């Protein structure tokens, strides 16, 4: 599904190398988690994959289903099936949540050569999906993320994911700013989307989220590289001992 090979990335503005050779392969139907201390490059990886400006790829490659991701515009990556759930979802005053999602959905369908979804079908679909995530009609009508609580913003991310049905989902610290109940709700939303044909990359600091979204593979990232890969037990090890032991072990 997602093939990242020896990816090197530096900041455009300053001469600072963030990713120093990341190798990662996420298969369809699997959930991979990336854990790591602050500043290890986890979020940078998610931004580079989704096409955010400000980063320069200095080496390596990233492919989604055999297509070169790094050569595409952000909207092309989305149409190809990539989705990033933002750590900090952006507020967009003046653009209704519903308008936003319908525009996005139909833009993707158009890019894939599919027919646009009509208003009635769209409304039916979004109402059903919103209900599962306990998102009320009022939240759908309001401007995108404006005045939403932290939990509402994250639920809105998952709603978008559910509506857009991407092939490869990246969740960037989706647990940050969530209380226990909200985390459960969001996790249920993600789990409902787990599917044979879909891959997940879950970026998180804490084991907590991984209690709800059970990963198949756990990677530890440090200083721009993946330093260790293992099963779910690796996350528990981090939870108990912190990163220090792991880092020492690799060094």
């Amino acid at each position, binding site marked *: 599904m997602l093939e990242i090979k020896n990816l090197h990335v530096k900041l455009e503005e300053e001469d600072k190398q963030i990713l120093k050779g990341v190798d990662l392969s996420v298969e369809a139907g699997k959930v991979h988690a990336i854990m790591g201390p602050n500043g290890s490059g986890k979020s940078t990886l998610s931004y580079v994959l*989704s*096409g*955010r*400006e400000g980063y320069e790829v200095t080496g390596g490659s990233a492919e989604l289903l055999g297509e070169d991701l790094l050569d595409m*515009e*952000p*909207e092309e*990556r*989305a*149409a190809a099936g990539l*989705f*990033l759930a*933002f750590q900090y*979802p*952006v*507020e*967009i*005053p*003046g*653009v209704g949540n519903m*308008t*936003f*999602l319908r*525009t*996005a*959905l139909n*833009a*993707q369908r158009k*890019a894939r050569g599919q027919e646009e979804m009509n208003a009635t079908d769209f409304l039916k679909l979004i109402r059903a999906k919103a209900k599962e995530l306990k998102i009320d009609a009022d939240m759908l009508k309001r*401007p*995108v993320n404006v005045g939403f609580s932290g939990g509402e913003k994250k639920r809105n991310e998952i709603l*978008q994911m559910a509506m*857009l049905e991407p092939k490869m989902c990246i969740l960037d610290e989706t647990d940050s700013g969530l209380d226990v109940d909200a985390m459960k709700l969001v996790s249920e939303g993600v789990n409902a989307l787990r599917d044979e044909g879909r891959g997940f990359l879950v970026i998180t600091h804490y084991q907590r989220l991984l209690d709800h979204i059970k990963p198949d593979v756990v990677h530890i990232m440090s200083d721009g590289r993946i330093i260790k890969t293992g099963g779910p037990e690796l996350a528990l090890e981090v939870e108990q001992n912190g990163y220090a032991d792991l880092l020492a072990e690799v060094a």
Partner: protein
Amino acid sequence: MALPQTKLDATEERLSSLTLPEGGWSGAARKDALARLREYGLPGRRDEYWKYTRPDTLVQPGAPRAALFDPGEAPVFDSIDRLKIVFVDGVFDAGASDDLSLEGVTIERLAEAQSDLHWAQSLYGVLEVKGQDPVQRPLAALNTAYATDGVLIHVTGKPSRPISLIYHHRSESSDAILHHVIKLDAGAEATILENGPAAARFNKCMEVDIADNATLHHVRTQGRDHERRAATHIFARLGTESVFKSFTLTANGVLTRNECVIELTGDDAVAHVAGACVGDGDFHHDDTVFITHDAVNCESRQVFKKVLRNGATGVFQGKILVKPGAQKTDGYQISQSLLLDDDSQFLAKPELEIYADDVACSHGSTSGAIDEEALFYLRSRGVPEGEAVNLLTLAFLAEAVEEIEDETLSEEITARIEQWLIRHAG
């Protein structure tokens, strides 16, 4: 103070190209206006009030040539059931206009109201004179003196349809001067629509008197002719618990100066004046607003949004004056520009002058580019860049457009802006 010779000369040169209409009941007001104009002189480049907008082409004797423009789309408001009054280059077109009778309102043409006594006599030039203090507006005085036609609308009830003034531009050098007077009796309610470029150069004045508990909605679009010029004035006086809501969409036009002078004279009155403009290239748009609070517990809102690209210029001069005793005033003023490139500019002069101590007035003025974070967010969801920029631009203008109360009208305006953005993408 004597006027500088250059200004005197310029004014007399302009006047020599005009003929003062006889105008029965309005004759005295016209002569007074002419005297006023001679006292002020026409606006010049060094006048403080014209610091950001060069008046030269608005005051020169003949109208600069303006190429005719085929917008290639159905005229705005076409689908709305309304009473149509059509002017072509400032000349009334009876054939294209509807019958002027409508329940709850009497409508006459200024050029035809020839009696010696007329209800409009108490307003024609009267609100304009009041609006000349403390800032002179010579182009409005010129209008009162020389207007060749216009409509006199007396609203006594609640007419079932909007009254729609349609201005066509069919001659490349037309120079039109129209003056409308609108009077709403107590409790009356009406909607006035205006659309079209009107002429190569258009000088329009609208005096509005809104009695107690009356409501006037005003929505206009100024025509997409790129080379047209316009100087317009609205002078409105509001009575107790009355409401005036005015919205203007300006897309294109080489030069537009819209002045709006509102006086809240009765308690609990509400005045909202809003404008959205979109300009690409040779475009200069100036909103000059002056709202005076002279009663208790009144609310005023000024909401002006400008989208500018390729060297377009936007100007905003907005003032809220709160007179002594106008307690509980709620005044709000926002002027913002979205600059889509480095060549465009926005000049703003927001002013508050407050002589009462129990008021809430706020104002803000900003200039900015498209929010890159929001743009990336939209694109990451699959919205192509151009479409995402348009979506954010519409969102930027929304606060102004939302000032239109009628949903059908606001949707119509939004659709027009959307089409403009699609045509002017990138």
